């Protein structure tokens, strides 16, 4: 992965700080951290509950704004963007997978997958779409609505949507948090495949060492700061390290 790290990062944050409240009640969700995500790399973000993982992801993805510091996506300073510009950035360059409620209930699977492109006014790339869909194993479920799909199937649709527009970067916040281990493995394998075969860049928040082991690199957050990081992690190594963090 050394050639990947030497290229310009797909996204990076400099002095990223996010404070909530003020005075004694001030919470430093992000405490001036620097982090970079190389293109074509699968990064897992771990850390105790409340350590700022979701906050980091939201600020990186332009869903939220920093109190101070800068976030760059594909070389552009997200911190300087208007709400509209950030929205356009999200649909043009980013993909999202949340823990739950990823899909618009009244749209069928297919419509959900192409939604960001439709919103941008682009015609979906049918060839690519078919490839993504068949890889995820959804080809025969495309006409179903979310309520007619299992939780695992719904997450697959969410992954397909995140990948369908060939984004620069995919953010996933505990994408397997609600799933059983078999389904989790399927989803994670697929994400791994997207990185290996398609050169996709993925940043994933997770609590699960097993999930983290699919990544190329794990970044540990504690109290809004980067505590450590690990390359080519295994479940056991991650688990051991987390014990040292006193989780």
């Amino acid at each position, binding site marked *: 992965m050394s050639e990947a790290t030497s290229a310009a990062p797909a996204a990076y944050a400099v002095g990223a700080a996010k404070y909530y409240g003020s005075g004694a009640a001030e919470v430093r969700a992000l405490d001036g951290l620097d982090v970079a995500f190389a293109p074509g790399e699968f990064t897992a973000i771990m850390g105790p509950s409340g350590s700022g993982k979701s906050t980091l992801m939201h600020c990186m993805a332009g869903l939220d704004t920093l109190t101070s510091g800068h976030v760059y996506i594909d070389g552009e300073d997200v911190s300087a963007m208007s709400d509209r510009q950030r*929205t356009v950035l*999200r649909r043009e360059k980013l993909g999202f997978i949340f823990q739950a*409620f990823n*899909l618009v209930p*009244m*749209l069928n699977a297919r419509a959900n997958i192409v939604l960001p492109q*439709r*919103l941008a*006014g682009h015609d979906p790339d049918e060839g690519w779409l078919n490839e993504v869909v068949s890889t995820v194993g959804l080809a025969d479920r495309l006409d179903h609505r979310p309520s007619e799909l299992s939780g695992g199937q719904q997450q697959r649709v969410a992954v397909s949507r995140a990948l369908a527009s060939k984004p620069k970067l995919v953010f996933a916040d505990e994408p397997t948090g609600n799933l059983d281990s078999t389904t989790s493995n399927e989803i994670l394998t697929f994400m791994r495949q997207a990185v290996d075969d398609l050169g996709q860049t993925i940043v994933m928040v997770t609590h699960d060492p097993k999930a983290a082991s699919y990544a190329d690199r794990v970044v540990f957050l504690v109290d809004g700061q980067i505590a450590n990081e690990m390359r080519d992690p295994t479940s056991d190594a991650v688990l051991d390290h987390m014990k040292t963090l006193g989780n």
Partner: protein
Amino acid sequence: MLSIALLRVVQNPFRYVATALAIILGIAFFTATSVLTTSFEKSLNTSIEESFKDVDVAVRSTNKIDTPVFDARERIPASLADEIAAVEGVAGTFPYLAGYAQAVTAEGKTIGGADAGAQGIAWIDDPVANPFDVVEGRAPVAANEIVIDADTFESGDFALGQSVWVLPAPASSPFTVTGVILDREGSFPGQVVSFTLDGALAVLGTSDVDQIFVEADDGVDPLVLAERINQQFGGEIEAVTGNTLVSEFQDVIGSFARIIEIALQIFAGVALFVGAFVIYNTFTITVAQRMREMALLRAIGASRRQVTVSVMAESTAIGLVASALGAAAGIGIGWILLRLLSGFLGDLDMSLHVPTGALVGGVLLGTVITVAAAYFPARRGARVDPVQALRETATETVLASRGRSLAGFAVLAAGLAITIWAALGGDSRLLIAAVPLVVIAAVVLGPVVVRPLSHLLAAPWVRSGSITAELARDNASRNPKRTATTSLTLMIGVALIATATMFAATLSNLIAGDLDEELLADHVVEINSNLTFVGAGLDPETASEIAAIDGVAAAVAVRDSFAEIDGSFTPVTGIDTAQVTLVADIEVVDGTVTGLGADEVAVSIDTAEDEELAVGDRVAVRFQQGAASLVVAGIYDRGEQLLQSWLVDNAVLDANLPRSLDTRILIRTDGADAAMLAQIDEALAGNPTASAKSRDDYIDDQAGQLSGLLTLLYALLGMSVVVALLGIVNTMSLSIYERTRELGLLRAVGMTSRQLRRAVRYESAIIALIGTLAGLVLGVFLGWAAFDALGVGYSDFTVPWGSLIAIGVAGLVAGLLSGVLPARRAGRLEVLDAIAAP
């Protein structure tokens, strides 16, 4: 449980704003009508009591015609006053005479338009009996002197000592203004000119007076005096006490006030009915959103009854507060309407009276409607299974059931069958049975047709590739029942508006079509005053002058008058029957209409059939000043629009009216040019309110007379439409609240705030369009059915496409506007907060 219900209202007051407004508007409308009519009635009653409090006895003729607005009583000889004065116990007599008279300003114009009130009154030389006081100058003493009421004096820019032309007298015999007068009780609205008795008799062209007011000697009971006068004179003269006079007036005012009140309350009722749907919808949605909370309450041991009661308590609280606010607003609106009405009636003095009954009634009505409308959603909420507390309640598409479609279509078929049958058979009573069926079918079928309709309506946008339109469409049809109920509220108002529009268009076209067939004249002279029944008109000389103009083939005078025939008020038209066929294309069915004699009458064929009259029959006709037995000389078919159903020669009116003036002149020329028109105008100089119109203008004016009424109907029905639009705002706001998380997701994956706002506006527009279209279809259908049942043939039925399309466009725009507020709220959602919403 009760405290939970109240907590819900207190914690979430904004969710109930639209609901409350729906009730507030309806109840305000309802209360305002009562406040208005009660104030109107009470104020007039008081001023009438005051005006007549010094009249002990009034002497008048027993002969009268009840017109829809006033009693047209025969006049009695002025000389009777002296005879009555000689009766024992009479202290004084005061002849009272009133009729149309209007002062002309120095610019040669009258003040106000066609509906300006204007009367000439004989001055009563007794400061107590005379309701007017002289506030400047002095009372008239010579026959060529007048006094003018203060308002007219000011607005007409008159001056004391000025020589003024007063209609209907000719300009050549002017009057001198000697004073300014003011009525003490404010019971004489409009323009008033007062003459000496001799002056009034001359101007009004009579030797008779309306009544003679009698003052009794001290200690003489008016009742006894009236009886004494009755014994002495009797016959066609009657004496009544002042109290009788007052109560007669008050009865007339009372029944007039009731008619207005009931008419207005029908519209308030429609608005409240629509409001009930809005309330029903609100509770259906909020109960659905709270299913989990209710299930939780049930799980921890609340009974079904308690859950129902908690929702009912919530609705009672809202209903009470909103109704009370509505009643309070109603008083304010009533006051404003009262001022407007007072101004419209020529600054009639009216004070605010708030009927407690109507206030209490309004609050009760609003509360009952709210609670009743919330009952069904409350019961549905109570039926929730306790285990649902544990389930994720998805707000998923609720599809209309097959049974609903079948039932709906069956009711619709029944309604349509009855309507068509009624229309073909002409039995309008049956339509009353069909109308509710069609409305029920619309209610039942609403959810069935929402999905196809939203797809159809959004199709043009969606085809242009708009994802926002597609989302809007899918959102509008994801809960068809909700969308249907929301649209339905709009449908009701729109349907009524469409029916009214059709009625007006069809009647206008019928009038225009008939006149076009009947009218042979190419110009028509009319006077711009509604007071023709009380003596406004053109001097008969005018018609002769116009007839003498070079190139004028005929100038035929028409006098629109009235009489009592067969016990009821009937319009009667006088015309110069020697020339009638020159200007009117009358189709004579039997006998003749030409050159009718002073004891002859012609009737339209419809009237002849209704009254079972044939040529040669005699008809008893009571005119304003005298009765006549007329022989039917002819029966005509075409001509009713121009000349009504009873036609006499002007000579008959000359003999039986205090003074008969021309109200229209139908002119037939050999081709009118500018010079001729100038000559006609010159001939009209004798009356500043008269003007000549071309045939086309005249027909347009006649056909357009309904437009004022239509505007009024629009305004009254507009209230229901406003309530329905509030309902749309309400549904959209509640839906957005419900979909917060989903909206957050859409924003996260790249929907701009602008796209989101647009989607909300489109959805609101789709809902409004469904309601508008359904309303238009229903309105056209009902209008057509009603017309056909009333005997207007299918071919005469006019569909005003232009107006209907305009209503449709207005519905679209109103829908888009209704979406603006909810859209703004949706657009302002913070993406992360929205995603984190429960």
